[in-house]
């Protein structure tokens, strides 16, 4: 096994471990990797891409919904529910946590709380999107160098 592959693999393990330790990702992200195989080699990348697209759309919808003088909290709740669902399916733990708080504020028709959560969700999504892209890039590099992606713990 070449030095390059070994180095990349270690980098990958260090990075992914830190993401789990800092709570960005949970076990569901590992489960997604179990669904990827030779017949479905890009499964994780596909899911991450879809998650990115859906999240950006939902953030835009939420921003619009929260700009009105009279907020339709039912609509806000529906969007957040969607966001919570997809972040849960991908293992984006911190985004999911913000969604839970967001729903509480929407339920209570608390404008300030909702606006704060919107800001937080934008931040958390931006963070996880960047980290997932970096992680997937590392996986690509490992495979391109002829190695296999080590199993995350």
């Amino acid at each position, binding site marked *: 096994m070449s030095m390059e592959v070994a180095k990349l693999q270690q980098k990958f393990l260090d990075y992914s471990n830190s993401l789990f330790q800092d709570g960005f990702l949970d076990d569901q992200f590992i*489960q997604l990797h179990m669904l990827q195989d030779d017949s479905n080699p890009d499964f994780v990348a596909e899911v991450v891409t879809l998650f990115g697209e*859906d999240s950006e759309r939902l953030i835009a919808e939420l921003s619009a919904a929260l700009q009105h003088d009279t907020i339709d909290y039912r609509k806000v709740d529906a969007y957040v529910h969607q966001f919570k669902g997809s972040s*849960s399916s*991908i293992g984006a733990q911190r985004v999911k946590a913000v969604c839970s708080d967001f729903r509480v504020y929407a339920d209570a028709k608390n404008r300030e709380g909702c606006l704060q959560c919107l800001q937080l969700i934008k931040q958390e999504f931006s963070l996880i999107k960047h980290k997932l892209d970096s992680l997937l890039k590392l996986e690509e590099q490992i495979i391109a160098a002829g190695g296999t992606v080590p199993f995350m713990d």
Partner: protein
Amino acid sequence: MNLMIDEKHVEILIAGMWRKWIEHGGAVDGKDGGRILGAWEVDMRDAWGYSSGLNFPSFLRTERHGGKSIICPKLILIATSMTSAECEIAKLMGYADTIIMKPLRASMIAACLQQVIGMGDESQPGREGTGNLQNLLCGKKILVVDDNRVNRIVAAGALKKYGAHVECADSGKAAIAKLEPPHTFDACFMDIQMPEMDGFEATHNIRKLEEIAKESGKIWHVPILAMPADVIQATYDECVRCKMDGYVSKPFEEEQLYKAVSQVLSRT
């Protein structure tokens, strides 16, 4: 060819044409207490001739052992696609142990072998669940209903892992169109919270259609499992009231999935 599983050597003789693993096409002698496995590829579309994989078990008995009953090695059938009926027939022909769907996945082979040989870490009860989910879901046609496409894809991926054929619908209305009798689905996983028509209402409508279909003489009841995002008591009660058959929260966790599915689908 040897395969290391849990630090034990298992010799696998692969017969038949199979992309990467070609050994020889011939009968398999059991040795080492029956540890040898025979895996025979079958193409269900071929006529059920002498060389068909389906006939292999009886071929083994008659040709090599003069019709005497033998301790047969564990037999695993590998197929591209099979209906539940075909799985039943395969069992009758002697593939009583298990069936794996192609394309083969290393994780599925490992789980299948562990189940069949009876090895594996006893302290991991989830492992057994994997093998059993394979038997429950293999070849079954499942409808996944969820308005969230990330959820759809992840749920479908999880079910495909165990050999199910999965179709998706993105609304209650689309689900009703697919599940109006007659249809060929074995089960449906239904999201609860969806815009326009939620999972409860969709299920209610499907049951109404099944009632109407009864008048033509056939009983229809497609098992519908709810996929609530949060499992709370009110949801459970509603599931029962709307004549759903169970629920499993998402994202799927293996043991929960097995518990829910085993109650509505029988082993093939």
